[in-house]
């Protein structure tokens, strides 16, 4: 997996060079350009009380959703908040906010894990390159259990 990675690092800079790359000196260094396509992370079955935090949805909306799950008619005793990569920060933030709102009624239990992600590298000139390359990289994830402790 080391070889593709080195190619990527050069290609990323080249990719944005665009159509005039042919006259730039960079082409001599590495004739094969790649496009990086990230695949989505693996999906796992989701229960009703699982909340996956992302960076696209509004923070407030996600917080409200968690709050609703905890004290709405659904009345879940516990919910799980998952965050991956950049969203870890936000997941923690949401969990802490929930705890603050509940005036100490809620407890948290956090777990961390590592998620394996897959990237596809598509050669720009597919006829010349051999196999399409894939590489794996790891990303951190957090799973926070937010629950009412049994009295």
């Amino acid at each position, binding site marked *: 997996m080391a070889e593709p990675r080195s190619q990527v690092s050069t290609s990323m800079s080249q990719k944005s060079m665009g159509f005039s790359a042919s006259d730039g000196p960079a082409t001599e260094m590495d004739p094969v350009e790649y496009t990086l396509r*990230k695949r*989505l992370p693996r999906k796992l079955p989701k229960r009703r009380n699982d909340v996956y935090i992302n960076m696209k949805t509004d923070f407030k909306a996600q917080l409200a959703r968690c709050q609703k799950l905890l004290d709405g008619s659904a009345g879940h005793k516990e919910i799980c908040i998952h965050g991956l990569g950049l969203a870890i920060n936000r997941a923690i933030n949401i969990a802490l906010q929930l705890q603050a709102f509940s005036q100490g009624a809620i407890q948290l239990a956090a777990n961390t894990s590592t998620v394996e992600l*897959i990237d596809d590298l598509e050669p720009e000139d597919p006829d010349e390159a051999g*196999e399409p390359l894939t590489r794996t990289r790891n990303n951190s994830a957090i799973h926070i259990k937010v629950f009412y402790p049994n009295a």
Partner: protein
Amino acid sequence: MSGAKDRMRHKKMRNQPSNVTYSQWRDSTGRSSDSPQQHMRGPLQHPSGWKRGHQDGGVRHEQALPKYITASLFARARAAEVNAMLRAVSKTTGSSHVFGALPKHMRRRAMSHNTKRLPCRLREMAQRMLEKSQQAGKKEKKEQSKTKSRRARRRHGSLLLEFNRRQRKNKWLETHIWHAKRFHMLKKWGYCLGERPTYKCYRASYRAMNSGCLLQDLSYYCCMELHGPEEQLLNALSRLTNKDAGPTFAAASCVSGQKEGRVMLYKADQYPHQPLGPVRFLWRPCSTTSPHRQLWIWVHPSLKQDLLPELQAVCQCFEAVGPAGVEVVPSENLVEASLISPVLSEFSPEPQCTRRKRKLEADNENDCPVRKIVGNGTRSLTTPVSWSSCNTEIVISDLTMEIVRYRLIGPLSHSVLTEILVPATDCESNTKMTSSPFWWPEECKKEESMSLHRQQTDVFQLLRGVYSMAELPPGCVLGLTVDDPRLSLSAKRGKVTPDLHRTQGGVEEQRRNLALRGVSSVCAQSALWEKSVRENVTNNKISEQDLNRMKRELLVPGSRLLTPAQSRVPILLVNQAGKQLGEERLGWGSGWDLLLPKGWGMAFWVPLVYCGVRVGGLQMSLKHSQYKRMPHFPHDYPDCPAGVRFQEQQEIELLEKFKRRPPSKRTNYIKYGCATPFRCPWQQLVEEWEKGVKQHEDNQDTKTIKIKDMTSLSGAGPNPASAFIVLRSRKVLRQLSVWCRPSSYTRKALGGSCALPLCPDVIISLQAEWKRCVLWVRLSALGKGQPALHAMLCVPTTEDLLRLREDPQWCGPNEPQHTDHLKHQLKRRGKRGEAALCCSALKEEEDCNIPETDDASSASKMEKKRVLFHINQHSDPSVVLRDPLPKPSASVTADPSHSCVESLSFTGCSNSTLVQGLWTKLLPNMSSHCSRMTLGWVVQGDFSLATGTGEALGFVSLVGLLQTLLGQSPDQRGIVLLRNPTSLQYRFARLHIEA
């Protein structure tokens, strides 16, 4: 005499005896050769028949009076006239009701029903007439029912005949009857296709694509098979493609057969001009037995007629090989064979005419009744389907309707497939010894094919544990042999849910491998590629009837049937990658394509539907590509011949729809400043932008504006070299996509990488390289607004952008209402009684061409002045000067000769067809017609359920876009205005180029 009067007279005289003329008269007398009729009829009649009032020539007639008349001749002539008169009197004309004889004041209501309302003397006759008419009605009805009782009509044989008659013009897919019961059907491209279900399911279908599974029948796509040595094939096909536009046929992963590829085809060696259309292709994995390779090219039916000659040309395949499956059939059977089509498999347990069946039974059933399934939508029975070449070893064959293709879209498509497909079970050992007419027992004897089957089965079992598509490499192909899904069809239907609990630890490693490496090319092999196997499987399908009988004999109802020897089907599963370009919602809309041999369509369709998938039609395929932000063929390929045909068709349909409204309720598109609401004149737009820029450059260089051939601007037809093209070069698109982003975004996304800066020099070189280009863009509305079809994409002025910066909630500028200069013309015509042209007589209007009289031409001179005035008002430079790019627009519009020429030519042809509220054939300057410069038009626009705002897909002129980007400040780059054809409100939208 005018036409109406003529017609009136004709109607009046219809039943009158024709003029009585005697040639003998002239012959016998011989004297009055100039006007024999005058003599005959006497002084009171005029030579030219009817004329009212005083006539000048009356005196002359007096002079022409004969001096004597022969009594016998005169009497004979009178006798003839009297005869004719009597005949006319005795003959009943028109509706010969008895009460027609009554004077008006004696007529009563409902006289024809109730004879008692008539006076006594007429009653008898009326009664007779009444009876007669009643009998006539009865007789007709009786005859109709005698020919066809429902029972007779629904008898299998006649039903088949009826079905075959009905699909003579537009062929049916195998699932036609299923669809016809549930869908609005459309006749398109030689097929009957379901457009959308009759029940409401637009949103539900979107949800199915998003989180469930949507099923479509894509069997109408045509498959072309190319067979030959790999180098020859690649050499020939490389002329049709170009690497610049993306991977070609030679892409490494595709050649191995591991993946299905998509490629854009052009006419041989013409890139980037003369595109044909996009195709999907699939190579058969290399087999050890044959050095030749097989390639399937899947083509849209509207593209086939363009592509096939081109393929033949590049492969030099001109010798038609006899259509193998068809010509073998002797001529007598041919008719019957053609009657039987795969469509009927839902209905017919044994698709054969009853008559023929009986005949066969009488003939001792020696020859097994062979089912021939022939005929399809795009070719007749006798046309060749296969072509070979004398120079090369390439053979092209047309496999249209030979392979059924279903598409499953959505994350659950996985689970649905694993639910209904059961990998084929081995044959019993005792059958292995004997030879079998079916393909699978023979296959079981070969060790390598069995090991392959085991490998494929293993991979398929792995797929069970895969929840989302993202775990698989996009486009991968898996060949498989499965049992007949009808055998295990359970009675209850319901939604499938992914089952992840079956996955164990050891499998985890394998699955990781699968995700990384994909399905190996060995596993992509399938017996579906073999023609003999396909035919064997199709011909030996167990009929529905037999299957039901077997089910009845089963001891435990509902349990799985024992697998008969013939019910193994080779299939191919092709992964369809979802959205791959852009940043948002990657992988959306991915799914599987299921390829089956012909005749097995319904056998797989019903189990699929029982799994709780939703079925979509043409509308949903359009929406699918819209949500993937991909151009959909042939809608969004205006530069391809098929796309051009589609646009013409669409224009006609939209115009028809427009004309169906009453004139007072129609939208006046001229007032909205929309010159072409029903089509997009890309060619003109591109040329105008180019011209504008050229003038701008000339302005800078030589300070002179001399454009001579202004008249040729809109009139000249595009020759192929100068015709506009859609930009498909990935490099350029990628570059443009970076430029379109606002500066803040660019920095974030690319981490400050060194993008080529947007500067005039680069742009000029780019413009020189890519002349007359439009490019595919996506627009998302910033605020409100739902873009519609053919909405205009305009350049915001600097004031607009400034105001937007101050007030981000501002909804956008307004277009000042245009004046309808054609209205006066129409009105005047209507007043002068020039009939037919005015908007009220619409139906005649289409085909009538009023010849211009002297009056009209003098009137049109008056019009010209007025029109000139209006046009100048429209394209007033003072309006346009608010633009951020005043130079090109001003230079175009400020040229008075230009608008003069335009308007003159415009009035010249305005006589042909005028519809109120629409421009005539000759259009005004497209780009500067409104107060904001037009960049392009929207081709697909709708409220996007995915983002919750209006979203549109369309094309813009490359030159126009570059100029716009250059004029905008970095933080507001890519903001454009959108305006619907039926609105004066501009709305802001962000432009994205996804590459």
